[in-house]
C-alpha cells in the first residue's frame, strides 16, 4: 500500500505541475518574449520609452481571442512595475463593465484615488471626475509618474459620443502629462470605429498578435509539457516522463492529431485549453502522457451538438422534423405547428404506422423548441399560443439525413419520406 502511494505521488505531482503551468499565462508566454521581433519587447519598448522620455502614447493591441494580448501586456506591466517602482500607476477598465462614459470616468477616479491613497467620493459628478482626471494627469506628470490606462474590449469604448476617449486623449495632447492608453480588442477594424476627432488625437500604434507558427508551436509543446530537471520529483521519473513525451511528440500520428486541432483554431489560448484537457486525461497509475490522452481530448473537443441532439430525439420528433423538411422542399417557407400537423396527417393518410394525437405531437413540438432544433422565426407575438407562431428548422436537411441514417432504430419509412 505504502509503496503504491509512493509510486502515485510523483505522477500526481507532475500532473499538478503541468496544470499549474497551463493555467498560468506568465509561464506560457515567457519563452516567446526574448526575441526583438516579439510583441513583448516591442510593447515594452513603447511603454518604457514613454516612462523615461516623459511622453504620451496610445497603443492598440489587436488580435483574435486567445492570442495572448492581455497576457503579454500583463507580463510587460509586471516587469515594468519591478523596474520602475512607484513611477507607474495602472488603471484597468473593461468595456463590458465600463462602456458607459460616466461610469468609466468614475472608475478611473476611484482607481486613481486608491493608487495614491486619496479619499474617493462616490457622488462626484461627471464634470468633477473629468476635472479630477486632468488634474491628476498633470500632477503625476510633474512628479514623473506615468499613468497607464488599460482599456480591455476597446471596441465597446468606441461607441456613441466617445466622451471618455476624447477627454483622455485631449488631456494627453495638451497637458504636460505622462500617460499611455492601451486599447485591447479582438476587432481588427476598431480604429475605424473611433470618431474622427478622437481618431485624430490617437497615436495609432498597433501591435498585432498572431497565432504562432508551426515551429513555434512545437517548441512550445515541449517547453510546456516536459518536466523540469531540478524539481522535487524523483530524477528517474522525470527522465522517463520526458523520454516518453519525446516519443509521443515525435510520433507522426500525434503530429497529425495536433494539426487537426490547429486547423480548427490555432491560437495559443485554445491550444492551452486542449493541452489542459489532454493532461487531465493522464492515467495516474501509468503516470505518463500517452497518445491516447491526446486522442480522447481531441474527440471531446470536436463535438457536433446538433447532430448529437438528433440521436436523442424520439421517433415522433423525427417525424415532425421530417415533415418540416418536406414543407420546406415544397417551398412553403413559413409554417407553424398547425401546418406541420396537416403535413403529418397527410403522411399518415396512406401509411399506417405510429399515428399520434394532436396534443402528444404538441408536446413533442415543444420539446424540439427547447432543444433548439427549431425556433420561432421572430420575436413578435409572445402572447400567441405556440401552435400559431411560425417556426423555422435550425438544422439543415443534410444534417438531418445524416442524423437519421445514424439513428439506432430509424423507421425505414422516414428515410424514404425525407428522400422524396
Amino acid at each position, binding site marked *: 500500500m505504502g509503496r503504491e502511494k509512493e509510486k502515485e505521488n510523483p505522477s500526481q505531482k507532475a500532473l499538478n505541475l503541468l496544470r499549474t503551468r497551463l493555467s498560468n499565462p506568465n509561464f506560457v508566454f515567457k519563452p516567446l518574449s526574448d526575441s526583438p521581433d516579439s510583441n513583448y519587447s516591442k510593447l515594452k519598448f513603447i511603454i518604457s520609452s514613454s516612462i523615461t522620455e516623459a511622453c504620451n502614447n496610445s497603443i492598440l493591441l489587436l488580435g483574435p481571442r486567445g492570442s495572448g494580448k492581455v497576457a503579454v501586456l500583463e507580463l510587460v506591466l509586471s516587469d515594468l512595475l519591478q523596474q520602475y517602482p512607484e513611477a507607474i500607476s495602472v488603471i484597468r477598465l473593461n468595456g463590458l463593465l465600463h462602456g458607459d462614459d460616466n461610469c468609466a470616468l468614475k472608475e478611473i477616479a476611484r482607481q486613481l484615488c486608491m493608487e495614491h491613497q486619496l479619499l474617493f467620493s462616490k457622488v462626484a459628478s461627471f464634470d468633477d471626475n473629468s476635472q479630477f482626471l486632468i488634474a491628476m494627469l498633470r500632477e503625476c506628470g510633474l512628479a514623473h509618474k506615468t499613468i497607464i490606462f488599460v482599456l480591455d474590449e476597446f471596441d465597446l469604448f468606441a461607441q456613441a459620443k466617445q466622451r471618455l476617449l476624447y477627454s483622455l486623449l485631449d488631456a494627453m495632447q495638451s497637458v504636460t502629462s505622462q500617460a499611455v492608453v492601451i486599447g485591447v480588442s479582438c476587432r481588427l477594424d476598431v480604429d475605424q470605429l473611433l470618431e474622427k476627432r478622437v481618431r485624430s488625437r490617437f497615436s495609432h500604434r498597433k501591435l498585432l498578435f498572431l497565432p504562432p507558427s508551426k515551429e513555434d508551436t512545437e517548441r512550445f509543446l515541449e517547453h510546456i509539457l516536459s518536466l523540469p530537471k531540478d524539481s522535487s520529483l524523483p530524477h528517474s521519473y522525470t527522465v522517463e516522463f520526458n523520454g516518453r513525451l519525446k516519443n509521443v511528440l515525435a510520433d507522426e500520428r500525434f503530429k497529425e492529431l495536433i494539426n487537426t486541432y490547429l486547423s480548427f483554431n490555432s491560437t495559443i489560448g485554445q491550444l492551452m485549453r486542449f493541452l489542459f484537457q489532454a493532461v487531465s486525461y493522464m492515467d495516474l497509475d501509468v503516470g505518463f502522457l500517452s497518445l491516447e490522452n491526446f486522442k480522447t481530448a481531441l474527440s471531446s473537443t470536436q463535438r457536433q*451538438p446538433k447532430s448529437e441532439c438528433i440521436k436523442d430525439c424520439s421517433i415522433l420528433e423525427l417525424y415532425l422534423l421530417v415533415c418540416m423538411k418536406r414543407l420546406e422542399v415544397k417551398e412553403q417557407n413559413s409554417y407553424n405547428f398547425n401546418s406541420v400537423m396537416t403535413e403529418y396527417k397527410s403522411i399518415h393518410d396512406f401509411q399506417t404506422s405510429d399515428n399520434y394525437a394532436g396534443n402528444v405531437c404538441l408536446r413533442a413540438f415543444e420539446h424540439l423548441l427547447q432543444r433548439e432544433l427549431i425556433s420561432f422565426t421572430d420575436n413578435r407575438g409572445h402572447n400567441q399560443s405556440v401552435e400559431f407562431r411560425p417556426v423555422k428548422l435550425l438544422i439543415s436537411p443534410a444534417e438531418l439525413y445524416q442524423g437519421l441514417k445514424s439513428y439506432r432504430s430509424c423507421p425505414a419509412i422516414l428515410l424514404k419520406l425525407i428522400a422524396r
Partner: protein
Amino acid sequence: MATETPKKQLQSPRKPKQSLNNLKVQSSPLSISLSPQTPQSLIPPQAPPRRSLRRTSLHFSSTPIEDSIEYEKSDPKTPRKAVEEIGKISGQSRKGQSHEERVKTPKTPKIPKSKRNDENRKTAKLGILGEGMVEAEVTFSSVTPEVLETKKRKRGEDKTVIPRAMATRSSKKKEKKRVYYKKVVYDEGEFDVGDDVYVKRREDASSDDEVPEMEECRVCFRAGRSVMIECDDCLGGFHLKCLKPPLKEVPEGDWVCGFCQAQKLGKYVEFPEPPEGKKRVRTLREKLLASDLWAARIESLWKEVDGSFWFRGRWYMIPEETACGRQPHNLRRELYRTNDCADIEMESIIRHCNVMSPKEYAKANDEGDDVFLCEYEYDIHWHSFKRIAEIDNDEADDEHADSDEDWNSSKEPDSGTDEDMEYEEESTRNAQARLSTAHLAANSRKGHFFGLQKIGTKKIPEHVRCHKQTVLERAKATLLLATLPKSLPCRNKEMEEIMAFVKGAICDDRCLGRCLYIHGVPGTGKTMSVLAVMRNLKSEVDAGSIRPYCFVEVNGLKLASPENIYRVIYEALTGHRVSWKKALQLLNERFSDGKKIGKEDDRPCILLIDELDLLVTRNQSVLYNILDWPTKPHSKLIVIGIANTMDLPEKLLPRISSRMGIQRLCFGPYNYQQLQEIISSRLKGIDAFEKQAVEFASRKVAAISGDARRALEICRRAADIADYRIKKQISTVNSSTGKDIVTMAEVDAAIQEMFQAPHVQVMKSCSKLSKIFLTAMVYELYKTGMGETTFEKLAMTISCLCTSNGEAFPGWDTILKVGCKLGECRIILCEPGDRHRLQKLQLNFPSDDVAFALKDTKDLPWLAKYL
C-alpha cells in the same frame, strides 16, 4: 506610513507654545515682538537645526522645536482614525493658518474683525468649532502695535516706494493699513515680487561686512580681473593662468579641476592653503550651499503700519536638507523650492541671488556666482518632489488679487457682496490646500481637489537627470503633440483674420452680434490658432494697448450635457457654482438685460466653444440662447464656435443659422508643403530625418486627410521604430555603429501601421479551416454575385470544396464556430451563431484582399483555384 496628515503633527505641539507666548507677552512686552520675527532678530541660544529655526520664524515662538520634529516622525495617527478628533485638530490647524493670517495683519484693527468673521463662517461650514482659535486671537488682538514702535530702527531716508496701481485707492485708505507694493527700493537695492534673495540666517557680524563681490581663485587666492573657470564638481574658481597646465580659453562642455579628478581617482588631495594672515573668505553661494545662509523667493512685499518693511518669503532648500539627502544626480548648484513660507523683515535680506529654471540656467553664461538651478518643488510635509510647472500656475496672481483688492478694500464686513464671498471662497480654498485635509474626498466638489499634494516622487528618478538624450529621442520629444511649437507656420492668414475679428469686436464699443464660426477637419490647427491669437492679445493687454477682456473656453465634448455649458460659463466668469438653470437665468440677466453686478462685468467677454456641434439639442435652445446674447445691445459678448462640419449652420434652425452663419472661417486641410514645413520647423536643429522621409510622410498624410496630428504622429512613430532598431542592435551586437537617422523605410513602416488594417496579416496566419471558410465565401460571392449569403449555403460549398480536394469535412458545428470566430475579428460580418443555418454572412473586406492573402498558402495550394 507616510500617508497621515502631517499638518496635524506639525500643529499639535503648538498649543503649549501658545500659552508660552502669552506668558511672555505679559511678562516682557518689549522684548518679544508679536510681529513675526525675522530669523535675524531671533537668536536662539543653542542654534537649533535649520529646519526648526525656519519653523520658529514662522510661528514666532522661541521654543526649540526638536520635539516637533520628533512629533513629525512618531505620530502614528492615521487621518481616518482621527476623524472624531477632527474638530480639535482642524481647530488647531486652523489656528496654524490663522497664525499666518494674523501675522499679516496684527495691527490693523478693522480687518481682523472681518477676517474673524470669515473664519467663523468657514469653520461653521466645515462643522468645526475652533475654540482654541478664538482664544488665541484674543491674545493677539490685545496687543497694541505701539509696543513695537520703540524697537524699530530708523530707516526710511534711502527708501523710495513705487506703488502699484494704488493711486486710485490711496484716498480711501486709512492710516493704519498695511500697504502692499510690487516693488520696493531698500538699502539701495530694488526688490520685486518674485525676486530671489539671500536671507541672513543669524547675526554673524564678522562675515556680514566683508561679503566678497568677486570670488577668489582657489590657487592664488586673489580675485583679480582675469578670466576664471569654474569646476563643475566642487564649484571652485580658478584663474586660467593658475592652472597646471594653464588654459588659453574656457573649454567647451564640462570641466573638472585637477583636484576633483584626483579625488575621484581615490588619491588624497591637499588643497593649496591660503597665504598666511589671509582668511579664506567664503562667498554667499558657498555659505548657502553649506546651509549657513538661506535663500527665499519674495512672494509679496508690504509696509507695516509702523513703517517697517516686510516680505513674505518662500524658502529654497539645498538638497542636503531634504529627507532623502543629496541624490547622486543632484547638480551642485541645485536648490528646491519648498511650499513653506514665512514673513521676514526686509532687514535680513543680504542681496539678490538668481534662481533659474533649467532652461534659463542652460542659457545663462556669466551671470556671476549667485546663480542657482531650481527644477523641483519640495513638499516639506510629504517629503516629496514635484517638477515646477513651466507656466507657473496662477497662485502668485491669486495672492496679488488677495492683497490688492480684498485685503485693502475697506468694505464693511457685513456688506455681504460678491467680493466677500469671493474672498471667502478664496481663503477657504487656500486654507484647505494648506491643510491637506485628508477627510475630504479627492475627486469631490467645489472645483478643488484635495490631497493632490500627496502626489510626488520620494526621490527624483535617476533616468530623468542622468540620461543624455540621443538625436532620435530629442526628435521624438519635439514631435509630441503635447509640445507647443514656438511658432505656428502656415496659419498666418487665418490667425490674422481671427485677430482682426477679435480686435474689431473688443475695440469697438459697440460689439453687436459678433459671432465667428470656424470649421475644418480635425488636426488643422483650429483651436491652436485661436489660442495663439488669445495669447498674443493677452500680451497686448499687458502692454496696455487693448482694454482688458475675459476669455472663456468651453469644449462641447467635455460637458456632461449640453445644458451644462451655462454652468461652466458662469463659473468661469464669476467663480461661483450654481445649477445650470440658475446659471442660465443669471447669464440672461447679465447679457440680455445688461445688468452688471461686479465691476469686471463690463469687460468684453470672448467665449470660445470648441466642438460646437455637440451642443445641438433637440429643440436647439442651448445654441440659440448662446448665439442670441451677442445680438443684445449691452452684452459685449463675442462667440467663437469651432466645429468640423462645414454646413453646421445650415443644418440648424434658420433663426440660429442667421445668427451664426454670417462670419465664417475655413481651415482647409494642410497640403503637403505645409505639412512638411510644420514638421521641419519642429525638427529645426535636430538632424534625425532624411529630407525625403519627411516629404514622404507629409505627402501621404496630405493625400489622405491633411491632418497635422497624423503627420506628426507618423514621424514620431518612425523615429520610434528607428530608435528601437538601434537600441536592439546595440544590445545584441554591442557596437553603436548603426546610423541614427530616420529613413524612408521607417516612415513607410509607420504609415503601414497607421493606415493599413491588419486584416491581411491575420488572414494569412489564421487556421486552415478559417482559410477554407474565407475561400468558400469568395467563391460563393463570385458564383451568385451577391454579397450576402447564409450559413447553410456556405456549409454546402465548403463540403463541396473539401470533398473535391481531399480534405476531411469537419462537420457543421465546427464550421459554425470557425465562422463566429472570424466574425469576432470582423473579417466577416455575421449574425449571432444561434441562428445556425439561417445565419447571414458577409465579407467585411474586399474579396481581392482575401484573394491576395490566401493566394499562396503553402499547406492548401488548391485554394488559389477558387479565388
